[in-house]
């Protein structure tokens, strides 16, 4: 009996159970919600969030209040860069990917340097960087048109690629496998967990703590850049602040996946389920016929309710 309870209390299991429950609820509220087509569409939206959350997850796992508030800015910036580099031509896809990754890595590097060299708390550093990125968006937007997605990119995101499943979902699965490999099977991954659970012990054990703090921020920037690129493919053209919504929802996806904001505990598989859970919840709220105010209230209250299922802090003990 206890094994059953402990199995059910695992974050990944909670998230999966909630996903099934929400799909059933959605189907009963509006028939067709859980049809194969709809689920594919939800998966596409979830994959965009999930890719941003992958980087966020690495930063949070690294501990010491690790958090990246600048991801939303990088997503928007990357969507604009990609739109302008490819400008509707398939030949521009590869240069666009390289440009976006470079931009994401660059801003991640700046975040990492601020956090390590100057020892600025991640929340403050990435918050300041978000302001810079938002300003940069205004500069770019006034100088050049927003650009269009190449047909190849749009097809990759929205059309079936293999087995009737769009390319972006395959990409998300690949990222999931990559993350599982990186976090569980590489020295880099083990070091992230080590630093996240006890930085001092990790340092004493010879982990290059400083260098290890920069890596996660660069990874986060690059994943956000990939998501921005895919978002451009999803929407066709980039518009103002497309990425803003990903800032806090990526953190919530990580939390719903069972990763502790204190770092050192959790993984990406749960985060994938967390992202899907969040997207399904939003999907249900848009199908239900209530006005915006009611939708927001239900969304906020449900988020709080769901958080109660996950790792709550420990009660104070003497």
């Amino acid at each position: 009996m206890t094994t059953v309870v402990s199995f059910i209390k695992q974050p990944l299991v909670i998230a999966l159970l909630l996903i099934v429950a929400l799909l059933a609820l959605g189907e009963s509220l509006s028939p067709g919600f859980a049809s194969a087509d709809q689920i594919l569409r939800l998966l596409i939206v979830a994959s965009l969030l999930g890719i941003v959350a992958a980087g966020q997850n690495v930063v949070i796992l690294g501990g010491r209040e690790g958090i990246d508030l600048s991801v939303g800015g990088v997503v928007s910036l990357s969507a604009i860069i990609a739109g302008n580099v490819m400008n509707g031509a398939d030949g521009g896809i590869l240069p666009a990917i390289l440009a976006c990754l470079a931009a994401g890595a660059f801003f991640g590097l700046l975040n990492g340097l601020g956090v390590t060299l100057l020892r600025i708390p991640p929340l403050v550093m990435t918050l300041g960087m978000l302001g810079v990125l938002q300003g940069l968006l205004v500069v770019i937007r006034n100088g050049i048109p927003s650009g269009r997605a190449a047909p190849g990119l749009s097809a990759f995101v929205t059309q079936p690629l293999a087995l009737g499943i769009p390319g972006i979902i395959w990409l998300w699965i690949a990222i999931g496998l990559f993350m599982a490999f990186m976090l569980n099977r590489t020295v880099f991954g083990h070091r992230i967990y080590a630093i996240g659970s006890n930085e001092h012990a990790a340092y004493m054990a010879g982990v290059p703590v400083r260098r290890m703090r920069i890596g996660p921020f660069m990874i986060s920037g690059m994943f956000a850049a990939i998501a921005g690129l895919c978002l451009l493919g999803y929407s066709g053209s980039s518009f103002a602040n497309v990425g803003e919504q990903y800032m806090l929802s990526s953190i919530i996806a990580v939390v719903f996946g069972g990763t502790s904001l204190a770092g050192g505990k959790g993984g990406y598989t749960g985060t994938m389920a967390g992202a899907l859970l969040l997207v399904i919840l939003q999907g249900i709220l848009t199908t239900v016929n209530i006005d915006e105010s009611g939708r927001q209230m239900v969304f906020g209250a449900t988020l709080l309710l769901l958080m109660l299922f996950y790792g709550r802090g420990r009660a104070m003990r003497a």
Partner: protein
Amino acid sequence: MTPTTIETRPIRPGGLKLWLERYPFLPALIIVVALLALNGAFSPNSLSYRSLTGLLSTYMALIMLAIAQTYVVSAGDIDLSAGATLSLVNVVIVVLMEKWGGGASAVIGAMLAGILLGLACGVINGIVVAALRLQAIVATFATSIFFTGLALYVMPVAGTPAPALFWRSYGGRLLGLPFVFYVLAVLALLLFVLSRTRLVTQLLAVGDDQQAAYQTGLPVVLVRIKGYALCGLFSALAAFCLTGDTASGDPLVGSKMTLYSVAAVVLGGSALAGGWTTVVGSLLGALTIGLVNSLVFFMGTPSEWQNFVQGLAILLVLMAGVLAGRRARA
């Protein structure tokens, strides 16, 4: 064995360090003075009595919100719903004042209701974070969505005007002095009284070391809830200032202000980790943001570059604030 010589000179902190310890907001004050000087150099008119009063009445809402944030940061928490609370109080008092006729009694009644509402929002946050033990960043983000929903329910679209009595008083003069000066004076008095209370000390104790505070017998959960209540109260005061400045209700007005309030707290020299905060610093931090914005304008920055330069300048001052604050604490 060689005899060990004992150093007789007492180890005393250096002069600068002592000053920083006593007045942790000094770096923020220096930055504000420097920004004022720069503003004056680029446009002497910006230092006139009139424009400074204008700056103060525009940024008084952010000042209040930064102070609100400071109290939760003291206890090591954070409130990402402060801006949403501000929006909610803003629309509720505008609607109530209109409903009750827009006279003096309606204004006072609505403000009392606004204060109660702000306190209620704060207590909800406190219960969710401290009693239910959810993580502050994500939990207060969730409540901010809820509060925004409530604000949209009260006023679906922005634009309902506040009664003339309210904004004329706020933007006007009383006994020959601009009204904001009285707001500032009352705020200073309020902060002084609060700094003498046990609650502020308890908040700092909890923020410094929660476990230690618990073991000395502090009711940690209750103290944190009170911290959030104080944050809600000042968010309501921020809403009054904002309503006086914009003269209308807007259900989404505060959403952009939350992160600025966090930035202002850091700019002022407080530690986000808690246990070391300065409300005067937060006040100066909010002014810094206002002065950076006006400086970028007066420098003649091309309009499309203004946001970028502002963002960059604020990032640089944030770094300076963190570094200076650390020197003071080390």
